[in-house]
């Protein structure tokens, strides 16, 4: 369904921004988070070898 310019302007800012974020805006933040999670899990997993 097409959204008119007026309707788009009335849309809450959060909704507009969410759509943009999901596309590409937050790509590097997400990658960095994945790095943090993977690093943490690597440390946790490495310790099993010595237990």
């Amino acid at each position, binding site marked *: 369904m097409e959204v008119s310019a007026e309707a788009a302007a009335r849309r809450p800012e959060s909704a507009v921004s969410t759509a943009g974020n999901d596309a590409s805006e*937050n790509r590097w933040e997400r990658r960095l988070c994945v790095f943090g999670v993977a690093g943490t*899990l690597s*440390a*946790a997993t490495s310790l099993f070898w*010595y237990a």
Partner: protein
Amino acid sequence: MQGIVPATIHEYYTWTGRWGAAGLNYLLTSSFDLVGFYTPLLLIIPFLLATSVFLLLRAARIGATRTRSFALAAAAAALYWNGMPDPGETVYWLTGSVDNLTGFVLSFALLAALLRFDVSGTVSRAAASAALFLLAFLATGFHEVFGLVLCAALASGSLQQWLARRSNRWIWTGCLAAALIGFLVVYAAPGNEVRRADFPFAGNLEVTVRLALGQSFSSIFMWISDIRLLTGTLLLLMLMPRDLTASNDGIGLPARNVVITGITGIAAVGGAFTAVSWAIGMSMAPRTLNGIYLVFLVGLFWVIVLSARCFPAAAAISAARPAARWALTVLFVGGMMLSGNTRKAIVDLSVAAPVYRAAMQERWRSLAAASDRGERAAVGRSLPARPKCFIKYFELSEDPEFWVNWGVAHYFGLASVKLSAAEAEPNIPADSGSPP
């Protein structure tokens, strides 16, 4: 006492009502060479826990795609491990893992199945219901406190099902009944009374109130103010808002569901602190605190998800400035990589853990060699390092009558084992030229 079932029954009458945990412990420790397979055995239950979290996320339609649900499950596992009070007692000790995590694995699997229960046909529906009742009963057989938490979760789910007049309300209620029966089986075990003799302040109301209030307030304050959890939660709402509201059937949930879930979470965490304080009358073991921390995390996450579904516009805070998102991301990643248990693990991995492993292997070889030579008594050398991430007790003492010494001696077929005094140099029977 020989055999897994007889030993489990014996333990039920003499030590603990956790029949599921006792049975699984006996099964694993009698079926595998613990020295050769300890690492893979240790990995099984944490892996199953992460898998059950993934299944629960998929069942609740949290995560727009499988990959995103997987990423969320991985992030949840990392956050839990990093923030848990003492990973040594729950993650890197097989018995601790079986007792304190397996019940959660089964509970999450049960909740996932209940959320997606949709079987047509009378026979298959009856069979599936019976399987779920059995799973609810089994899940409570691993830990009385976490079994009680499962009962609270099922009561909350049943109430929400009944209020919404959902078709699955009877299945939820049946699982609640099965879990309550399972909890009573564990709680009423004669072995619990035997073990209670070790806790002179058990059942003391004044001690219970003091301990429950003190431990719950200090722990919850610490958990809530954890920078990793705070930044992680904000990033979840900023970077993945649509993954929380991916489910069409979730949107438009009545606000009462958020209230019921929130009250259930608070009651479950508060009830767990109170129940443990009542049962032992002293500060709880870190492994129990690890379990309550998991309940806290799950409860908080569930309230956030339901809130996002009830009030999607309010929950989407992705309009924050890019600078704020970057600052939160750096704080989250820095917190995960450089603080909490990750920091301890980095220190352990660089020095203590390799030294500890080598020393334990050397001790094992020495004791086995002493046994092979037909010696009756052996002396173990003190460990040069103890990793902070591993369990703190279960070490030989200088007293050969100490129960750990007794257990080690019997494992190797020796009459006695003791630890050498710090200044007295080894009197270790060695197999490869080490000094006697």
